C-alpha cells in the first residue's frame, strides 16, 4: 500500500512538475529519507512545492504557495496551502504595504530558532535543521506595514482565527504521560490518555494581534515587537486520573491554550572593534496567563487525592544571541547561545549552545557542514555531520549523520543516532 502511494505521489510530482514548467509557476521537488538506528525506523517522503506570484496590477500582486507531500508518518496534511495572499505595494497609500490572506510571517534576526518568531504555528518535526524552522502553518490574517520615515516602519498583524501547532496524537500523549506521571507519582507506561481540547475564542472582534517597529538604532538594525495572543500548543488544566490494582491508569485530560503576550527585541549589526563579525540577537519576554493543571487521582483503594501543578505562573525570557563569521578560506562559523528551544516554555526553558560550521569546496559544489547543539543544563548533545552537494545549480543533494549523546532522559540524548539523505530539484 505504501509502495503504491509512493509511486502515485512520484507520478503526481512528475506530472505537476511538467505542468508547472509550462506555466509561470516555480518551485521545487524533493525526496528524502532517514533511518533511526535507535528504533530501527525508516522514514521517507516526497514533496512538490509550487509557487505562483503574478502581478494583478502595478500595485497589487497575488502569491500562492502549495505543497503536495507524501510522508510515511506524521504528515500534517498531504496537501498544504503554505500561503495564499494578495499583496498591495503602496496601493492604499505610498508609504503602506499590506498582505491579506493565508500568510507566513517571519520575525526575528537570528539564523537559528528565533524566540520572537511566534505568529505562525508549526508542524511537528524532530529534525534540528534550518529548514525545519521555516516550516510553518499559515495563519489567516492581515499584515500591514507603514513606512513612517526612511529609517522606521511600523507593522501591524491582525489574525481573526486561531490555529495551533500540529503535534501527532501519539507524541502529545507520550509527552503528557511523562508529565502527569511525574506530577501524580504513578507509572507512565500503562497510562491510557484521553484528551479533549478547547480552542480560544478568537474572532474578528477578539483577534490575535501584533505590532512591530523596525528601524535602526545607531548602526544596528533593530526591531521591537508586541504580540498579543495564545500559546500555539495546548496545556492541561483539568486532569482526572483513575488507577487500578494492576498499575494501569486512565487519564482524562482537558487542555486549552493559555493567553500570552510576547515583548520582542531584535538586533543585527557589526560588533564594534571585531572586524568581520555579524551579530544577530533576539530577546523575547513572555507574559503568560496564570495556568494551573488541577489533577485529581482516584486510587484503587477508593481514596482520591488532589494536586495542583502550575504550568505558567510568572514571566520568562527566551533568547537567541549569536555571531557569524566567514574566514579568509571561506569557512563559515555561526555560534549561537539559545535560552529555550521551540518546544520549551515557562519553567522548562533551558540554555543551549548551537554551532554551525561550513567549509565549501573551492568550486562551491560541495559544502561539508557540522551542526552541533549542546544542552548547557544536562550536557546532552546532538552532532550532525554532513555535506551538501550541487551537481548542477538547480539540484541539491544532502547527506548527514546525526549522533546524540547523553542519558536517555536528557534533553537531547533521547534523539538517538540517525542518517538522512535528501535530493532537491528547483525549477
Amino acid at each position, binding site marked *: 500500500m505504501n509502495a503504491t502511494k509512493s509511486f502515485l505521489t512520484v507520478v503526481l510530482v512528475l506530472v505537476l512538475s511538467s505542468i508547472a514548467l509550462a506555466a509561470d509557476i*516555480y*518551485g521545487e521537488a524533493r525526496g528524502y529519507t532517514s533511518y533511526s538506528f535507535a528504533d530501527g525506523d525508516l522514514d521517507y517522503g516526497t514533496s512538490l512545492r509550487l509557487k505562483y*506570484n503574478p*502581478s494583478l496590477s502595478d500595485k497589487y*500582486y497575488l*502569491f500562492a504557495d502549495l505543497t503536495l507531500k507524501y510522508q510515511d508518518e506524521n504528515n500534517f496534511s498531504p496537501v498544504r496551502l503554505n500561503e495564499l495572499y494578495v*499583496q498591495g*505595494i503602496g496601493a492604499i497609500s*505610498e508609504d503602506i*504595504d499590506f498582505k491579506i490572506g493565508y500568510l*507566513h*510571517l*517571519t520575525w*526575528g*534576526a537570528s539564523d537559528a530558532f528565533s524566540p520572537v518568531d511566534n505568529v505562525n504555528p508549526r508542524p511537528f518535526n524532530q529534525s534540528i535543521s534550518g529548514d525545519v524552522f*521555516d516550516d510553518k502553518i499559515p495563519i489567516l490574517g492581515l499584515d500591514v*506595514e507603514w*513606512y513612517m520615515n*526612511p529609517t522606521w*516602519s511600523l507593522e501591524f498583524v491582525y489574525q481573526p482565527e486561531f490555529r495551533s501547532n500540529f503535534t501527532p496524537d501519539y507524541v502529545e500523549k507520550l509527552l503528557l504521560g511523562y508529565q502527569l506521571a511525574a506530577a501524580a507519582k504513578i507509572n507512565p507506561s500503562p497510562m491510557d490518555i484521553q484528551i479533549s481540547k478547547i480552542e480560544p475564542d478568537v474572532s474578528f472582534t477578539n483577534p490575535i494581534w501584533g505590532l512591530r517597529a*523596525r528601524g535602526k538604532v545607531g*548602526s544596528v*538594525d533593530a526591531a521591537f515587537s508586541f504580540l498579543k495572543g495564545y500559546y500555539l500548543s495546548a496545556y492541561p488544566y483539568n486532569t482526572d486520573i483513575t488507577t487500578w490494582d494492576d498499575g494501569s491508569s486512565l487519564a482524562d485530560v482537558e487542555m486549552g491554550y493559555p493567553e500570552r503576550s510576547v515583548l520582542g527585541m531584535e538586533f*543585527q*549589526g*557589526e560588533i564594534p572593534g571585531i*572586524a*568581520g*563579525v*555579524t551579530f*544577530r540577537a533576539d530577546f523575547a519576554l513572555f507574559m503568560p496567563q496564570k495556568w494551573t493543571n488541577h489533577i485529581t487521582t482516584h486510587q484503587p483503594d477508593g481514596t482520591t487525592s488532589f494536586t495542583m501543578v502550575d504550568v505558567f505562573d510568572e514571566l520568562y525570557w527566551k533568547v537567541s544571541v549569536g555571531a*557569524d*563569521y*566567514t*574566514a*579568509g578560506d*571561506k569557512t*563559515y562559523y555561526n555560534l549561537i547561545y539559545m535560552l529555550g528551544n521551540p518546544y520549551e516554555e515557562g519553567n522548562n526553558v533551558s540554555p543551549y549552545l548551537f554551532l554551525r560550521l561550513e567549509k565549501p569546496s*573551492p*568550486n*562551491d559544489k560541495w559544502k561539508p557542514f557540522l551542526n552541533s547543539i549542546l544542552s548547557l543544563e544536562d550536557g546532552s548533545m546532538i552532532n550532525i555531520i554532513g555535506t551538501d552537494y550541487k551537481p*548542477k*545549480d*538547480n539540484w541539491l543533494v544532502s547527506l548527514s549523520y546525526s549522533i546524540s549523546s547523553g542519558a536517555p532522559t536528557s534533553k537531547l540524548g533521547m534523539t538517538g543516532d540517525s542518517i538522512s539523505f535528501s535530493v532537491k530539484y*528547483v*525549477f
Partner: protein
Amino acid sequence: MKKNILRIVLCAVLCLVTYWSAFALTADEILDKIEAKRSINTTQKSIGKMTLTDEKGKQEIRDLVMYSVDDSENTQNRAFIFRFLSPAEVKNVTMLSLKDGEEIYLYMPAFKKVRRIAGSSKKEKFAGTNFSFGDFGGGYTKDDYESSLVSEDEQTYVLDLKPNDTDTDYSKLTMTVDKEKFYFKKIEFFDLEGNPWKVLDIQEVKEETDGSITIMKLTFTDLKDNTKSFLQMESVEKGVNLAKDFFSVRTIQRPQL
C-alpha cells in the same frame, strides 16, 4: 651666435620639462579622473544577463536587473540594488548596497527576511557567482587604496592599488586604465600571498553624451577555481525616476522592482 643657440635649446628643454611635469598625472589623480567619469549624479536601471561558466565549461545564464544611484558630492549616498530574475533557484534573490558598500543586505525570498551582511561576510560569493559581496561594493577611490603608477604607454596607465582596509582578501590590485576615456579596462586581483587570483576584464563600454562611461560587457574570472562570470547589459537607462526611499530594505522585499 653659438651662445644664442645654446640659450634657445636650454629654454626649449626647460619648457618641455615644465610642460610634462605640469601634465603628467599621479596615480591618485588618475583614480580621481576615473571616479569623475563614473560619478555623475544620476540614477540608473540596467537589465542584463550573467553567464556563469564552471570549471568544466558548463554554462548557466541568469537574467538580472540592477538599479543604482551615484552622488559625486557625497559617496555615502551611493547605493544599488541587484536582483536575479531567473532561473528559479535564484529568482528574486536581491542584494542592497548602501553607503558605497558599507552596509549590505541580502533578501532571500525563501526565508522571508532580510539578512544583514557585514564585515568578512562580504568575502562570501554572491548567489553562486564568482563575485564576492565586496567585489560588488563600490568603486576604486584613492580613499580606499594606496595607489602608485607602475607604467604607462600611449594608450594605458598601469596602477598598483593596495587596499587600506586590513580585513580584505586582496594584497594588491593591478589596474589598467584607458588613457583616452579614463576607465579601467582590466583589474588583476592578487591574494594575500601575492598570487594572481581574479581578473576583471571590461570588454565593452559606452561613452554617454555627458562624458560618463557605462560598462556594457565585462568578464570576471577566478583563476584559482577556473570559473567565469560574464555580464552583458542589454539596456541601460539613465536618469530613472525613483522614489526617494527606493534604495531601502522595503524595496528589496517587493515581488517586482
